[in-house]
């Protein structure tokens, strides 16, 4: 059933502690007990520590973190594959944590779909049979299942492969099946758990493009888990960085790259291709001379540099969507912005770099 698109996800004060008596230790964690201390003193593992994330409907929220940071635990709370210790997960106003067993089944069938790191395709089913899985569970008529599944198989570029078994496909193609299976469900929320981490880099880029293209038309609320900062920056409208079960920074890709909240994040950001991430508006100088090429304020520094060097001009004017000049960029400014300098801390709210 085509659900009305447009459910946001609101995670509030979510804690997850693993161990024999997790509830007893929540207060200590609230009072500032660290993950290491909880382990050493009480033999409980702190999975998630006071998570607050709000994902607007129709946007891509990336959760980034290294292994053990709790990101896979977090995404499993959204469809309650893991029970939280305390907290709320509000989706369209309903608290997933409070749902009964029957409500939860209906919620999973109609509101969410999930893509897995290891694909989790059924080996005894063909591509088509795998893609209809969610629809079968919902109890849809067979002809609707097949018709809808075939549409998505075509859409993810697997037309002609519907009779193959997963074993006969490459990793990238298998994950396309995983994606088709999730999209065929037509749920407003798409959960992607390290969906591309098992793929090699070129295929991964390719699949990211597939997702971004699809998102332009489907406008789902997507929660995307990754350990790869480049992937996070490319896909995320919003990014949350998770470390030891705690969100250490939330913001747009610009926020993360230009104003990393701490040394840990700054360390990550150092390795990022800044030219591709930073936008013109984030580093531009006040409006200057009006001759020279025009650059959109959302253009990346890479694009700005290509445009400037091709035109041969010294400075370019940065314009907004209405075509008004809102700033200027010259080559030295671009180059210095692209070079990773000493991390600027968040409190140092200076948009124009020092050496311009």
């Amino acid at each position, binding site marked *: 059933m085509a659900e009305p698109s447009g459910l946001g996800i609101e995670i509030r004060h979510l804690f997850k502690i693993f161990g024999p008596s997790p509830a007893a230790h929540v207060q200590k964690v609230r009072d500032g007990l660290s993950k290491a201390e909880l382990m050493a003193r009480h033999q409980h593992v702190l999975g998630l520590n006071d998570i607050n994330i709000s994902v607007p409907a129709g946007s891509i929220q990336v959760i980034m973190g290294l292994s053990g940071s709790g990101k896979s635990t977090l995404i499993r709370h959204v*469809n309650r594959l893991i029970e939280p210790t305390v907290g709320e997960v509000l989706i369209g106003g309903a608290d997933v944590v409070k749902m009964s067993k029957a409500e939860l089944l209906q*919620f999973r069938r109609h509101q969410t*779909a*999930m893509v*897995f790191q290891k694909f989790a395709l059924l080996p005894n*089913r063909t591509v088509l049979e795998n893609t209809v*899985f969610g629809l079968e*569970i919902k109890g849809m008529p067979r002809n609707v299942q097949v018709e809808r599944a075939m549409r998505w198989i075509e859409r993810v570029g697997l037309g002609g492969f519907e009779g193959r078994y997963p074993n*006969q496909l490459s990793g990238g193609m298998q994950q396309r099946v995983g994606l088709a299976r999730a999209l065929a469900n037509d749920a407003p929320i798409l*959960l992607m758990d390290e969906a591309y981490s098992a793929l090699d880099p070129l295929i991964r880029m390719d699949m990211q493009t597939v997702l971004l293209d699809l998102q332009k038309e489907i406008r789902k609320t997507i929660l995307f888990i990754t350990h790869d900062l480049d992937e996070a920056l490319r896909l995320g409208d919003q990014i949350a960085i998770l470390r030891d079960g705690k969100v250490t920074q939330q913001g747009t890709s610009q926020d993360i790259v230009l104003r990393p909240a701490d040394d840990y994040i700054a360390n990550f950001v150092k390795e990022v291709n800044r030219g591709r991430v930073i936008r013109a508006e984030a580093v531009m100088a006040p409006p200057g001379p009006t001759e020279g090429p025009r650059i959109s304020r959302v253009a990346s520094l890479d694009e700005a540099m290509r445009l400037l060097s091709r035109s041969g001009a010294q400075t370019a004017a940065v314009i907004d969507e209405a075509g008004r000049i809102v700033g200027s960029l010259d080559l030295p400014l671009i180059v210095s912005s692209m070079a990773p300098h000493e991390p600027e801390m968040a409190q140092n709210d200076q948009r124009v770099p020092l050496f311009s």
Partner: protein
Amino acid sequence: MNWFSSFPQMNDSSLTALKKAIDEGFRQFTRQYGDTIEGFFTPLQAFLIWAERLMINTPWPIVLAVVGAIAWLASRRVSVTAAAIATLLLIGYFGMWEDTMRTISMILVCTVLSIAIGIPIGILMARSAAVQGCINPVLDVMQTMPSFVYLIPVVMLLGIGRVPGVIAVVIYALPPIIRLTNLGIRLVDRDMLEAADAFGSSSWQKLRKVQLPLALPTIMAGINQTIMMALAMVVIASMIGVQGLGQPVLKAIANQYFTLGIFNGLAIVGIAIIFDRVSQAFGLRLQKHREAVHG
């Protein structure tokens, strides 16, 4: 120091009294409930007789055609099909057709019963550690207890005939199908179950669409083992009146008829090989999707 050199056992008179009491109790139980229990098994008896008549009364060319068709459908291999038909032809030529039909009908009934009882028990075991903990020791007993021992109470309760034979065979042949059903379901990848959960499967949907299909090759191996063990019981079952290839073997043992023994023994081996190859080929065909690998 007497207790040191000879074991301090229970004194003889109380031991005899204990054995007598148990025997008496069981005899009492038999006298009281024997008819009820026999009544309970009457439908099984009727089914057994019906199956045996069906096999014997069907003209032999039709039986051959059916066996050939089953072998072909299960294995899709000419060699397996031809071997099955040739074996049956040889058995018939050497005058053992009727006994063989009796044995096959018996084995089929025992296998169907074992599957019908074993798969649900295996599923229950896979779903609960407690059930597994209770049933495992029972299976151990069933597999290690000498079959003659449980023939005694069965014969006391039900007398001699087909039904006690079937019960003895099923007790012996049941453990592998239970164990392998349990194992097959437990071996299903956790990722698959998580995916099924994420799409909102109820536990019945999970069982039917994910666990059983993925466990099927293992379950097939269990069925194969069950058939083989049922065949191994044919001779022992003939001691309590089950007719078929076991009876001539028994006669051969008693009278030292070497040729009679070896002919019927080989016939048992022949059907065992047919059952084994056909069911294995079927199991293999279920896993076709694993063979073709990308790359």
